[in-house]
Each structure stands twice: as C-alpha cells, then as structure tokens.
C-alpha cells in the first residue's frame, strides 16, 4: 500500500501487495509481502494521478492505457490492480495488488471487497498521515527554536556589556531582536588617544548564519579599528576580509564613526547602512557618506565624511527595523517620521524611549516585531564645549554622568546604588550624604523593580545620574506608568505596625523622602520616573 502525504504525494511505493489466499475460498485475501518491489515515482503531471483521483473504484492496471511513465513502471512491477484510497475527495494512497496466486483474474466480488476495504482504510490512513505530519512539524519547530537560541546567544555575547562613561557625553543604546533574530549589531570601541568608535550594522538573513557573519564582522572591525583609525579604511579592510568567505546572497550594511570626545569631531564612513541623524540647533540632519555594503565585492572604496557634534547635539544610529516597521495597513514608519522625531525629542536615552513609544503607536501594541531594532545615541551635553577632565566648568548646565539599566531581579538594587555611589563619590558629597543617597537609590530601584516592573525579566530599570554645580540628581525610571497603591503607601507608623494595625513593610518611600533633599515623581506615557535630588553641601555636613 502506498500513502500520499505532503511532499511524498508524488511517489507511489510498491512496498507490499495484496494477493489471494489459495488454500481457502477465492474471496479471502491476505497480504503477501513483496519487499523486493521497487518504489514507483509518479511525477506531479503524470496523467495516472488524475486518473486515480477520479476513478470510481479498483483500476485494472493491465487494461489501462495511458501515456504515463508511472503506469508503465507499475505494469513492469507486476501490479495488476490499483485501488485508490480517497479521503474527503483527496487521493491519499493506493493499494497495489499483484497477481492472484490462483492466476485467475480478480473477480467482481474481489474488487468490491477491496473497494470497501479502501473506503474504510482511507480515513484511518489519513488520520495516521496527519499525526505523522504533526510529529514532523513538532520536530522542525523544536530544531528551529534551538537554532534561534543559538543565534541569540551568539548575538548577545557580541554586544557591548557596558557603555562608556564619557565626560560631557551621554551614550545610550537599545537592542531588541525580533523573534526570528535578525543580524543587527552595534559596538562601542575604545580607541587610542581617547577616541571612541561607534558601530551599527545589519547582516542580511536571519538566525545562526546571520549571527556568525555578525560575529566575524565585529571581530575584524574591532581588530582593524585599533590599527586604522580612518573609518573609510577600516570598512575597506573589513570588506576585503569578508568577501572571500561570505555566504551567497548575504552581505553586511554598516556605519562606522570615530568620535573625538574633547572636540566633538565625528568622522564616519558608511557601507550601505541607513543614514544616521543628528539633532542640531537647526533641526535634524542626515549624515551622508557613500559606500557599498560589505562582503558583496572586493576592492570597494568607502567615502569618509566628518562633522562636529556641538554642545546639545545628539546623534542617532539606527537599524532598518525602526523605519521598516509597518502599521496594520502596511504603511512603514519611514525615514521622515524618524527624522522628525530626532528633531522634536530630547537626545540620548529619552530619544530612544520616545521613538519606541512612537513605534508602538504606529505598529499597534500587540504587533509582533518584524525585524531586530537597534538604536545607539550619542549626545553632547549642552554647555560643556571645553570639558575634558570630567569636572564641569563654573556656570555650566546639567550634565549627565551616566545612564545604565538594571534588570528587574531581587537584590539588583545593590548594583544600582553601588554604581551611583561610585559615580557620585568624587563630586564632594560628604560621607553621610552619600550613604543617604545610596539608601534612597536602593529603595527607589527596589520600588521600581517591584511595583513598576513587577519583577518582570524583560523590563529593566533605567538609572541616570545628572550633575549640576551644587546638585546631584538621580532619575530612576520604570515601566509602571500610573501610580499604584503600593507606590502611594500609607505613612508608616511603627506603633501601628507593632500593634498589628499596619503591615511590617512599607518603609521604602518613607526612607527615600527622608534620605534626600527632594524627591519628585513624574509619569509620562508608560514610564514612571522618581527623581532624587541631593545638594552637594547640606546643613547636616557638620554632623559627618
């Protein structure tokens, strides 16, 4: 019997036949294995398929005249009778029968019996086929999922673990892979003489192949960048390395720029990547430089351009996952929207947050992310044109010292408070005030992880530290847009707690308010921010 399912429908295998049992009555039939029969292939356009599909019952193979290679093969294999197995109008298999052992022809009763058998066997066979198809699909899904995990692991291992702290600059990055994991990557590379390289790229294709090419590109880029500071030359070198071994139909787009933090000079070259935008005092500007994607053909030359990022300017490097996100009607987010967002919104991490909010509004909140999304921002603080040693000159405005994220997991408030303490310690806060700030940051981060993010693995707490002449500000942002009852807890009263009239917990907000000089809450879109303000010198310094 041959079954026809999925991709095997073109093939009829003559693995067994049914013959007559001669020792009993002529009507009884038994299976006679004949495993030496060769499989018979039926081409999709073979007329035998159409004939069997429309046949009303058992088909006398010897008597059938068709211009059919498959029919010729069946005859050559000694098949006498073919009984189509049809389920819900679809040909799903065929019973092949060789000659009866009595050497007599199949009788009308034989055929009727076989047709009845086929009519009952076909649905059961179809069920078996469906089960097998589902099992095969499950195996395929599992393999696909394993490949995705490998690709994710490769990509995440090659993304920067931390972003550099550049005095007078704010660096922020966002990377979110699509479910199928595309080939986005970004990197920030410390270079000689205090320069810093910024990279954003995209490998065509998805999954493990893209992740491997991304890893190779990043490695060559990192090695080349140390020796060859000119961005155009670096891209040429990567292209020469990638071309010989690049898999067919794959290539890499990449924007590579080198920043001199003291002067704001930004030299860049582009290998076919989406153009970066700079927010300037005059609006948003594209940074153009010509060059072919990497890995397509050797001998390419990459145009090199440069610009000065002035105080207050903000650069956005991005991947096509942003502009190519579609709304439910199929309209792309597009370059004009992104350019407009850069012009309208503040730079840095806030620009990324705002663009993501706009993107969600465009695609719809429940839309599946189509492609990897990567954004890297590089913002120069206003009024710090000459800062070079990390200390702001007198009269300068706010400068951001650091921005980092803390995953929402129990105990991670220690990471936040330690990092803030390390950053703030050199600013001259007394020991007691620094300890108070640490406690406030720890409590605020704990609240943000618990009440704002619900300790969800996929939601982080963002911590920003800003400095002014006499004030330190720490902004702690979570994803709890609206105030929750836990955030506005009752004022703790220890006597009520000891009497069992209040729960023992609920000290967090109370501690925060008592530890810092000011605390302000803001809610914007889906984000909640608690700003902690600490004067560098306080009335209580004498107590320290």
């Amino acid at each position, binding site marked *: 019997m041959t079954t026809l399912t999925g991709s095997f429908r073109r093939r009829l295998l003559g693995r067994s036949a049914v013959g007559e049992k001669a020792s009993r009555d002529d009507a009884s039939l038994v299976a006679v294995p004949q495993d030496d029969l060769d499989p018979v292939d039926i081409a999709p356009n073979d007329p035998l398929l159409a004939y069997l599909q429309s046949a009303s019952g058992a088909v006398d193979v010897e008597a059938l005249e068709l211009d059919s290679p498959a029919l010729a093969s069946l005859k050559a294999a000694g098949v006498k009778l073919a009984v189509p197995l049809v389920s819900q109008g679809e040909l799903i298999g065929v019973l092949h029968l060789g000659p009866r052992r009595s050497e007599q022809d199949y009788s009308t009763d034989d055929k009727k019996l076989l047709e009845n058998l086929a009519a009952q066997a076909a649905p059961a066979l179809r069920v078996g086929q469906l089960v097998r198809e589902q099992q095969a699909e499950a195996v395929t899904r599992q393999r696909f999922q394993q490949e995705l995990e490998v690709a994710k692991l490769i990509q995440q291992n090659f993304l920067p673990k931390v972003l550099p702290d550049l005095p007078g600059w704010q660096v922020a990055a966002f990377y979110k892979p699509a479910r199928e994991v595309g080939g986005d990557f970004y990197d920030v590379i410390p270079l000689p003489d205090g320069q810093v390289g910024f990279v954003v790229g995209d490998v065509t294709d998805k999954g493990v192949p893209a992740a491997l090419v991304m890893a190779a590109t990043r490695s060559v880029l990192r090695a080349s960048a140390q020796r060859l500071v000119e961005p155009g030359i670096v891209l040429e070198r990567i292209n020469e390395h990638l071309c010989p071994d690049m898999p067919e139909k794959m290539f890499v787009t990449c924007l590579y720029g080198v920043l001199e933090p003291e002067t704001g000079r930004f030299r860049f070259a582009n290998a076919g990547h989406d153009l970066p935008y700079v927010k300037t005092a005059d609006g948003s500007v594209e940074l153009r430089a010509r060059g072919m994607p990497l890995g397509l053909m050797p001998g390419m030359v990459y145009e090199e351009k440069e610009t000065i990022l002035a105080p207050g300017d903000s650069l956005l490097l991005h991947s096509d996952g942003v502009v190519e996100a579609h709304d439910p009607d199929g309209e792309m987010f597009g370059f004009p929207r992104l350019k407009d967002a850069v012009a309208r919104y503040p730079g840095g991490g806030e620009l990324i947050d705002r663009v993501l909010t706009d993107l969600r509004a465009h695609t719809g909140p429940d839309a599946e992310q189509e492609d990897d999304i990567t954004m890297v921002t590089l913002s120069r603080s206003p009024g710090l044109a000459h800062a070079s040693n990390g200390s702001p000159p007198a009269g300068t405005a706010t400068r951001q010292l650091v921005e980092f994220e803390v995953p929402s997991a129990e105990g991670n408030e220690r990471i936040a408070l330690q990092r803030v303490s390390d950053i703030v310690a050199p600013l001259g806060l007394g020991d007691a005030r620094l300890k108070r700030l640490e406690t406030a940051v720890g409590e605020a981060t*704990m609240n943000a992880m618990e009440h704002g993010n619900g300790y969800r693995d996929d939601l982080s707490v963002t911590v920003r530290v800003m400095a002014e002449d006499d004030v330190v500000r720490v902004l702690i942002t979570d994803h709890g847009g609206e105030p929750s009852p836990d955030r506005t807890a009752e004022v703790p009263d220890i006597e009520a*707690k*000891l009497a069992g009239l209040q729960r023992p917990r609920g000290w967090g907000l109370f501690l925060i308010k008592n530890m810092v000089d000011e605390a302000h809450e803001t809610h914007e879109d889906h984000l909640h921010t608690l700003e902690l303000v600490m004067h560098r010198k306080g009335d209580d310094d004498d107590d320290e």
Partner: protein
Amino acid sequence: MTTSELPTAVRRRDGVAVIDLVGDVNGRAEGALDAAWAEATAVDTDAVVLNFEDAGYINSTGIALIVGLLAKARARSLPIRAYGLTPHYREIFEITRLADFLAINPDEDSAVRGVERSAP
C-alpha cells in the same frame, strides 16, 4: 546581583541571647532571622541583643523584619537591644523610630550591661 541568606549565630552571655548578623539584612534574611529568634528564645533569656557589627546593607524589607522581631519581643515582654550599627543605620533607626523601641548601644558590653542594670 543577589546576596545569600543572612548567616546568623546565637550566643548566650550573662543570661542574654546575642544574635550575630553577618551580611545583608534584606528580604532574603527572613528565614535566618526567624530561625535565630526561635533559637534565642527557646530557653529563658533576659533579653535579646542584635549584633550589627558585621551586618552590611540594610534595606526597607530588612527594617520590616526587625519590626517583626520587635513585635515578637513585645508580645513576650522581652527587652531587645542592638549594637554595632554604623552612624548611617543608627540614623535610619532613629528616623523610623525603631530606636524608640530598641535600645541602641555602642558595643556588646554596654548592651549586655544595660540589660543587667535594667533587670529587677
């Protein structure tokens, strides 16, 4: 970053149970604190003294756990004292008024002597 459960030890000195707290006093310390309290009060004791000399970070959940100990002590009219607090945590104990219900001493000797002096 997570910290391991707070290691504790219970010692007895002059009829007083001394609980040594080593490490962070946070939510993960709850089991260890409860066990230490049970051990400290398993036999008659004039008071319980909490030794914070080797304690690290104390967060609001840790404060809540200490409030819980105070409530247990109050239920059995058992004095509770503390020593070894840094100036910062001493300030927090004062702000939260924990210090109103738990005597704070600079060291173990004065904490234990304080119990002896207040004993009838």
